[in-house]
């Protein structure tokens, strides 16, 4: 029997005036799985995650969390419901320390708003260690960290503050080869916890094949293919990535010019 989906998106559409960004999209995510959401630029990936994280409201369609119908009117509501989104820009402040970033907006305080800084340092250090970075000095400014370490910080923060569905928006783009691998390792460690569903948005077919358990392909606002790793062949993935076009066709088109 299939495991129970943690979050289910049914027939979601989103129209911006005359423009249909999403046209009846379905998505199922399961705890302990990495669900790769793939598609070309303009396929509707960003619109979909903005709906899931409460930035936009869908024009029609429903979102279920653990079989309960939910609608999020703001990012705050989505995050309270357990949806943690790590955007490309990471929402991290360079000049501030790791700990101050980790707890930004959700500081631990005692009387008169005093920060419990030692406790916060300890938690930031421990949470990042859990998913792979031993950052010895959490009072160091984030500006000194590598891109991969910043991703880890943002992911650790989302998990610590109760994310059950972790949405990662292109976490490996704009990183060097080695750091991309570090981020993929981090994603695997989060997956190994077994209680968190990960939505992994990417352009990169190779990365998705390395860690994804399940795929959804978007093109022009519609799902053009989905399935588990076992159901899809490598060739399928590449074809669907390109929005359904065969690389062979593209080669022919290029040859003509």
């Amino acid at each position, binding site marked *: 029997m299939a495991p129970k989906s943690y979050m289910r998106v049914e027939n979601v559409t989103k129209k911006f005036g005359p423009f249909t960004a999403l046209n009846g999209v379905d998505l199922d995510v399961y705890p302990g799985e990495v669900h790769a959401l793939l598609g070309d630029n303009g396929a509707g990936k960003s619109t979909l995650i903005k709906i899931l994280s409460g930035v936009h409201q869908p024009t029609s369609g429903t979102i279920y969390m653990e079989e309960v119908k939910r609608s999020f009117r703001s990012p705050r509501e989505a995050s309270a419901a357990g949806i943690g989104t790590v955007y490309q820009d990471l929402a991290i402040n360079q*000049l501030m320390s790791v700990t*101050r970033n980790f707890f*930004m*907006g*959700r500081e631990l305080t005692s009387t008169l708003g005093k*920060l419990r800084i030692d406790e916060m340092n300890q938690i930031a250090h421990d949470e990042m260690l859990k998913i792979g970075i031993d950052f010895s*000095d959490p009072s160091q400014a984030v500006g000194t960290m590598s891109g991969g370490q910043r991703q880890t910080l943002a992911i650790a923060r989302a998990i610590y503050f109760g994310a059950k569905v972790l949405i990662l928006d292109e976490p490996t783009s704009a990183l060097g080869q080695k750091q991309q691998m570090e981020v993929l390792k981090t994603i695997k460690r989060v997956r190994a916890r077994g209680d968190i569903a990960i939505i992994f948005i990417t352009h990169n077919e190779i990365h998705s094949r390395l860690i994804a358990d399940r795929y959804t392909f978007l093109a022009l606002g519609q799902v053009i293919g989905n399935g588990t790793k076992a159901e899809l062949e490598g060739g399928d993935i590449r074809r669907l990535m390109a929005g359904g076009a065969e690389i062979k066709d593209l080669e022919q088109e290029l040859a003509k010019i």
Partner: protein
Amino acid sequence: MSERNESDRLQNESWTQRMMRRPEIGSFIVMIIIILALGLASEGKAFNALGLKNNIAIIAQLGIIAVGAALLMIAGEFDLSIGPMIAFAGMSMAIMLKWGLPFGLGEATPFTAFAITMCMTLGFGWLIGTIVVRSGLSSFIVTLAFWFFLRGLTEVCFRLINQNTNVSGLPDFKQESWFAEQMGGEVFGWLYDAWFWIGQKVATGLEFTAGMTKDEKIDLINYLSFLNINRKMEQWVTGFDARLLWFIIIAGVAWYVLAKTQIGNWIYATGDNKESARANGVPVNRVKVGLFMFSAFCATIFAACQVFDTNSSDAAKGMFKELEAIAIAVVGGILMTGGFGSIVGVVFGAVTFGLVANAVFFIPWIDGAWFRVFVGTVLLAAVFANERIRKRITGGI
């Protein structure tokens, strides 16, 4: 097998390297240089009993508004309306004390005049902040508009109510009002008492005698001035200006809030990158409006200390003070772009500026305008230094 990972590349720093990274290091070095230079050039007169009092008075005065400007700059905004806010608050208090409370509420006491004025200036601070966060306009332009608006309003109110742009010769409220004494009176008298007591012990046997030449007399007076003794062999100076206490309170509270509390973290986050702060749930707008109000609060305290000290006020009060406050904040290590800085640095900056502004009184051969030459030079140097520190902290990005 090599077990190197990313974090190994960050070397452990020595204590010295750590100190060099601190935002206040530059202003600390400049301050030490100025203290030594002024001490030498004035033959120590800048730090005798009266010199210290006068220097501290101006340091505290500038420091009060610089702290307000600095917090606002860390949150990424400017306030050019500090000077006109001082003039407005001074005018408001002086006119109420002279002509009575508005709406026929009768005679003003120092406290009621202050409280009503504070309500008005906080209201202006709130208005400026709200316009900035709602419109998304640069605070430079919005507060520049309020610079003109408040300067004009101050003068108009003076002329309409008082027929004259200055109020002077108010009764000395410090005599009967405890509140006025806290604003314009003296504090830490015990320090000067102790100084005098020690001075007497040191100076035993010294006295003016009939046979002394003029030069010998001057030397003796100079010597006594470092012992807090005047030429009648009595105590010379009795205490610091009350604004020193206000400076200590305001700087202390601001330091604590910024370095140790949740609101401090919000201030840094707002100035560093307000979008990511907002995405993490920091109430960016409330932080900014609150800090514009705090800046207005500091300007009002500045004005109250001035009014109750001199028992007068006029429309030209607070001229250039907004620029001096910003300059002190920058020299104190606050980044123009926000998100970084410390109150300790601002205190060092205020000491530096206060001493240089007053230097002309202790070094007779110096032209007072050199003060501005110095400010310009140090300001430019500070901006470059701050930029270097920022790059060092963010790893050169």
